[in-house]
């Protein structure tokens, strides 16, 4: 047996759980999406930031490298010494000019060039320049740079850090580069990871100088050509000039370390962000879980209470119904008025119970009456037989016993017949069979049966008919009505009284009237005489055959035929029973 309350609670909780689950999942999904998005944005931002920082690092590193290279270039540009060309000054050209022209030695081209410092001299100088002298003690150059300066003709200068080693000349790359251009690259050399810058600058001045005589380098003027526009076309003069191929490399492990540190930092930050993200998601789902659980519990309690409250009328009805017993048929619905849904049930139950109680009481009464009516003759029968058997008797005495028993049995038979008739009427098992009936003939038949009894009581029985007396009705029921009314009239008449039966018909129906000159019926009993076993004066028919059922049968038959019965009576003067039965089809709408 499932309880409504329990199932309703379970259903609502299931519904609630489903709703909470869906809402929770949605919230979790949305939030985690948002978090994910935020996270990826943050990641991107972080990555970009770190990329920038790395680039910055590299740029700074490169700048330093480039600065170094430029410094070198600057110094180199002004410290190209053509020591090997120096002898040419006099040896070849000088000799030539001196020999070709008078005072030729004066116009020696190198000399001219030296004096004029023009392009030709530069060209000449550069074409033959082989050496660059740089004062490596200058702090600016640093110690850790692997630098190398080359000319087209060959290696011109190597930094002290290089020692005996040299950097690959990369001539092809240099040739492809434009003047003043530079290029960074990573190389692996001497078992080291190096960052290198290639810088191509023109040689702008050449100093012819004997090797043993070196002038100290002038300070490097950085302002003049600090950051040339890469896009600016180099002047044709410079373009054509002899270039320096300057390489400067430095161990990039420091940079790498910095970069690795940055990467590690990035990774750590990302992980932290991830962790935080996950943690906040976990916190959220936990919070959601607790909220859901709390809601669920509260809603469960609420549902239980509300459903209990909602079901309380039903409970009260159940209580009221369970209080119904054989002793008390009423429905005691306690508390406020029942809700609208229950009103029909309560009303129907109340009515049904009232009907049941009436039926029950009628039945109880009838059973008691029937049992009384049956048991008394039975007791008589039994006692008569037992008395007869107690001792031996004469034949005459013995004969009396069955004779007495027969009388009792007849009485019982009639009683049983009447009870059966009433039961049939009660259960509506009797069907009305209408057929043409001569009411006068019927009255004659009944009086013929009853006349001997009336005579035995010393009564006068007369029949009056009003023509026409032909009707369409159920002859059996009519016979039952007339016979019982006549019986009644005989039973309750006074000696030498009169019984008057009058029948007539008109267009509305038929009338049966039985008048007697008997004891009459006191007004307080007028209604009750039709109850079964009721006797206004029980002494009258204590030994009779009616047993108080005659008028009940009459009423049953009259009701079956949709008729009505009236009583007129005066105590001591007699009673008149009038039965009216409609024969018109329009009023005959019952059976």
């Amino acid at each position: 047996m499932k309880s409504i309350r329990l199932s309703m609670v379970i259903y609502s909780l299931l519904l609630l759980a489903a709703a909470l689950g869906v809402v929770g999942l949605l919230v979790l999904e949305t939030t985690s999406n948002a978090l994910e998005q935020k996270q990826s944005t943050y990641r991107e931002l972080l990555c970009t930031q770190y990329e920038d920082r790395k680039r910055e690092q590299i740029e700074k590193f490169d700048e330093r490298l480039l600065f170094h290279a430029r410094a070198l270039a600057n110094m180199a540009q002004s410290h190209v010494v053509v020591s090997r060309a120096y002898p040419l000054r006099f040896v070849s050209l000088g000799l030539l000019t001196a020999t070709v022209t008078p005072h030729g030695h004066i116009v020696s081209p190198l000399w001219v060039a030296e004096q004029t410092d023009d392009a030709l001299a530069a060209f000449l100088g550069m074409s033959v320049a082989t050496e660059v002298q740089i004062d490596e003690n200058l702090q600016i150059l640093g110690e850790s740079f692997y630098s190398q300066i080359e000319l087209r003709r060959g290696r011109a200068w190597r930094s002290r850090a290089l020692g005996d080693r040299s950097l690959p000349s990369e001539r092809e790359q240099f040739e492809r580069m434009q003047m003043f251009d530079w290029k960074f690259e990573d190389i692996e050399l001497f078992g080291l990871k190096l960052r290198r810058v290639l810088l191509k600058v023109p040689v702008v001045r050449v100093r012819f100088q004997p090797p043993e005589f070196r002038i100290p380098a002038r300070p490097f003027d950085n302002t003049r050509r600090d950051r040339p526009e890469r896009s600016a076309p180099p002047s044709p003069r410079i373009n054509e000039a002899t270039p320096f191929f300057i390489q400067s490399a430095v161990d990039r492990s420091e940079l790498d370390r910095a970069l690795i540190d940055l990467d590690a930092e990035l990774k750590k930050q990302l992980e932290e962000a991830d962790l935080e993200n996950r943690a906040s998601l976990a916190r959220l789902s936990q919070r959601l879980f607790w909220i859901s659980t709390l809601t669920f519990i509260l809603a469960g309690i609420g549902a239980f209470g509300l459903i209990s409250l909602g079901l309380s009328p039903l409970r009260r009805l159940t209580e009221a119904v369970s209080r119904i017993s054989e002793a008390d048929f009423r429905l005691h619905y306690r508390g406020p008025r029942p809700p609208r849904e229950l009103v029909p049930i309560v009303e129907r139950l109340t009515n049904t119970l009232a009907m049941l109680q009436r039926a029950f009481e009628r039945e109880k009464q009838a059973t008691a009456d029937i049992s009384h009516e049956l048991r008394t003759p039975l007791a008589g029968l039994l006692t008569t037989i037992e008395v007869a058997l107690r001792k031996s008797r004469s034949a005459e005495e013995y004969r009396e016993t069955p004779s007495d028993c027969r009388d009792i049995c007849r009485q019982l038979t009639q009683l049983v017949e009447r009870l059966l008739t009433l039961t049939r009427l009660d259960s509506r098992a009797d069907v009305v069979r209408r057929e043409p009936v001569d009411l006068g003939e019927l009255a004659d038949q009944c009086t013929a049966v009853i006349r001997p009894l009336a005579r035995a009581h010393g009564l006068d029985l007369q029949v009056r008919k009003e023509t026409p007396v032909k009707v369409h009705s159920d002859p059996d029921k009519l016979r039952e009505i007339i016979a019982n009314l006549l019986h009644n009239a005989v039973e309750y008449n006074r000696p030498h009284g009169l019984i008057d039966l009058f029948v007539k018909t008109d267009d509305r129906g038929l009338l049966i009237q039985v008048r007697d000159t008997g004891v009459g019926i006191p007004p307080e009993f007028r209604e009750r005489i039709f109850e079964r076993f009721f006797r206004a004066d029980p002494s009258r028919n204590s030994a009779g055959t009616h047993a108080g059922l005659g008028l009940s049968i009459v009423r049953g038959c009259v009701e079956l035929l949709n008729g009505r019965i009236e009583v007129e009576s005066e105590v001591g003067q007699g009673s008149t029973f009038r039965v009216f039965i409609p024969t018109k089809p329009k009023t005959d709408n019952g059976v």
Partner: protein
Amino acid sequence: MRVLLVEDNRALSRSLKQGLEEEGYAVDVAFDGDEASFKAESTDYDVIVLDLMLPKVDGLSLLQRWRAKGIATHVLVLTARGTLDDKVKGLDLGADDYLTKPFELEELLARLRALVRRSHQVKSPIIKVYDLEIDTASHTVRRAGREIHLTPREYSLLEFLAFHRGRVVTRTMIWEHLYDENDENTSNVVDVYIRYLRNKIDKGFSPALILTRWGEGYMLRGEETAPKEPPEGES
């Protein structure tokens, strides 16, 4: 013993009256409440057998009326209604016993015997006077171990004397309890029956148990054992 039988069913009433009379009871019959009321108030019955559903006045009202008037006669209620409610109500209103119709005659008789005993404060069914034993259940009488055959009327007389043993009962008392309303009261009928009884009970036995009190009536000795004084006034 005199019984009032109140029963409206003629057949039952007649059979019962016959059965009771053959048991030695004096039976008066009443067919309705009024008749029963009148008879019960005018005669001292040993037991009343009362049907409940009666014409005019019903049995329970009668019972109530009698008890209110102080009539303490034991009443056995006979009814066709066998429900517990009816029984309880009947017993509460002062009925002494209850029997539902239809009943066995033997049962009715046994209950009547018990009621008669109770009305005389006798519990044991066997009454002993010296060597005389009266079995009120089987209506048998023994003296000195010998069975004595008595007619129902003789037995009733002896039983009546036995119930009043040690006390004098008048001829009127005997008449009233042993004869019904229809019997003719002839002056010496009681004396005649006493003589019959003495012939059977006392003749050939000693001591004589039925004593005559001149001018008063008769008495059965009351002691169960040997007499304290010699018997007096024998006749």
